[in-house]
């Protein structure tokens, strides 16, 4: 029997983190039906430019066609299933599969086939790469594999207005920082979504952030988390250096200056908003107990020594936080396998987790059954 009082907000059951059936349903009913972050608008600004990603393990290519239209296509050749495009780059006129050279137009239709007459009854007109919905929100490109999901413009509620203030589209996007963890994707998301563990898990962060004003505000398909910084200088050298030298990027909104702000975009994208730089961090579930991640950094492009130093110190401080979080998630992942643990209870400070779990309850009926 669970030790959790019925009146208290409860987590999802442990089964939701260790059941292959739940995982498969999440891929189909969450990831394949949600608007998923793909890339920065500048990555696909020029005609012919492309960016590859994946949704629920499905390879996807986002590209700008010669007419300037944004497109999202399956990145799987219809011949023998090879991946067509890799990483990011430019394919000005056509997409060519590196395996046997099948060639596609930017709208996905088959353009040419080597040794075409060697195929019996190949109906070229019927062959095309599946196409997905694609859109742009505040300088970020999103893809949705479902035709039934509501439009991107309304999907995240007022998030577009909130992000518009940051002029993300004008920022300089850095490279990809891939990583991988032996955690169910929800363990990582849960950890991100609450600050209740900060005092014990991240003492350094407790000195930097005014924890009593740390506030998660759940909203439509996202959660906005304010982490105001303390005024007092930290006793720790790197933290104090950051406090002393940090200056906001040009155009950074006044009301966010002095805070570290964290945003969760349902289901598995996070935006860290620091006055000196921003980053996106995306989870790619890669099996029940394995998650690939990709981080990217965005900043004004300032090459001033002070700004570069601040960005470096910020990265160092947050790398430590990340290391601490990995240890915590390791422990949680192991604990979720316990036969005696059914489900947990949530503090008011964990309202971001509750919102996330309620979204999962809504999208994956039955996920709450022990």
């Amino acid at each position, binding site marked *: 029997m669970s030790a959790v009082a019925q009146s208290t907000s409860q987590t999802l059951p442990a089964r939701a983190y260790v059941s292959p059936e739940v995982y498969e349903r999440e891929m189909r009913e969450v990831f394949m039906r949600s608007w998923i972050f793909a890339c920065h608008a500048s990555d696909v600004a020029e005609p012919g430019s492309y960016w590859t990603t994946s949704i629920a393990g499905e390879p996807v290519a986002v590209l700008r066609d010669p007419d300037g239209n944004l497109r999202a296509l399956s990145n799987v050749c219809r011949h023998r299933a090879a991946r067509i495009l890799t990483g990011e780059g430019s394919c000005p006129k056509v997409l060519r599969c590196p395996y046997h050279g099948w060639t596609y137009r930017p709208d996905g239709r088959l353009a040419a086939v080597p040794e075409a007459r060697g195929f019996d009854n190949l109906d070229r007109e019927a062959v095309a790469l599946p196409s997905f919905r694609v859109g742009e929100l505040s300088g970020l490109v999103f893809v949705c594999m479902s035709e039934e999901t509501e439009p991107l413009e309304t999907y995240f509620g007022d998030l577009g207005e909130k992000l518009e203030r940051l002029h993300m589209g004008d920022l300089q996007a850095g490279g990809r920082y891939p990583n991988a963890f032996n955690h169910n994707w929800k363990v990582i998301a849960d950890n991100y979504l609450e600050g209740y563990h900060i*005092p*014990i898990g991240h*003492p*350094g962060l*407790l*000195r930097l952030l005014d*924890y*009593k004003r740390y506030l998660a505000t759940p909203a439509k398909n996202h959660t906005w988390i304010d982490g105001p910084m*303390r005024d*007092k*200088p*930290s*006793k720790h050298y790197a933290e104090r250096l950051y406090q002393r030298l940090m200056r906001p990027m040009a155009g950074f909104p006044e009301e966010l200056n002095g805070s570290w702000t964290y945003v969760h975009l349902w289901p598995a994208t996070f935006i860290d908003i620091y006055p000196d730089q921003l980053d996106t961090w995306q989870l790619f579930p890669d099996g029940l107990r394995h998650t690939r991640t990709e981080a990217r950094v965005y900043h004004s492009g300032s090459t001033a020594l002070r700004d570069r130093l601040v960005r470096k110190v910020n990265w160092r401080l947050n790398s430590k936080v990340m290391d601490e979080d990995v240890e915590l998630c390791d422990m949680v992942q192991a604990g979720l396998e316990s036969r005696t643990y059914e489900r947990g209870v949530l503090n008011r400070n964990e309202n971001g987790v509750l919102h996330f779990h309620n979204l999962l309850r809504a999208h994956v009926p039955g996920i709450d059954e022990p």
Partner: protein
Amino acid sequence: MTPTYPAGRDAWLFLTPEVEREVPALMDALSQARADSELHRIEHLVNGGSIRSWFDYLRDCRQRLELAVAEGGDEDTARRLAAVLREQYLLVPALRPEEPSDEPERRRLEELTWTLP
């Protein structure tokens, strides 16, 4: 068997959030202390204090609480403050070997939460 305690000089900081959130306003309501100066004192400890100075502060809070109760301060506020402080003595055994003063402090705060009408 030797008990194990969390490594790192900052491990005690996990004690501080509820005190930082609750105590300034409670002290303000109960005694002469002003919330902002109480908060300043706590922030100073969070930033540069130690577990020892933290418990010195908690002891000082308990003494002021008792004084306020003796002078007829609001009982609900006093009980709540006592409960917040008492929680600290229930949490600290996870951090370090027990200090001789811990148990009497915890008992005193427990009594305060019970004996206040």
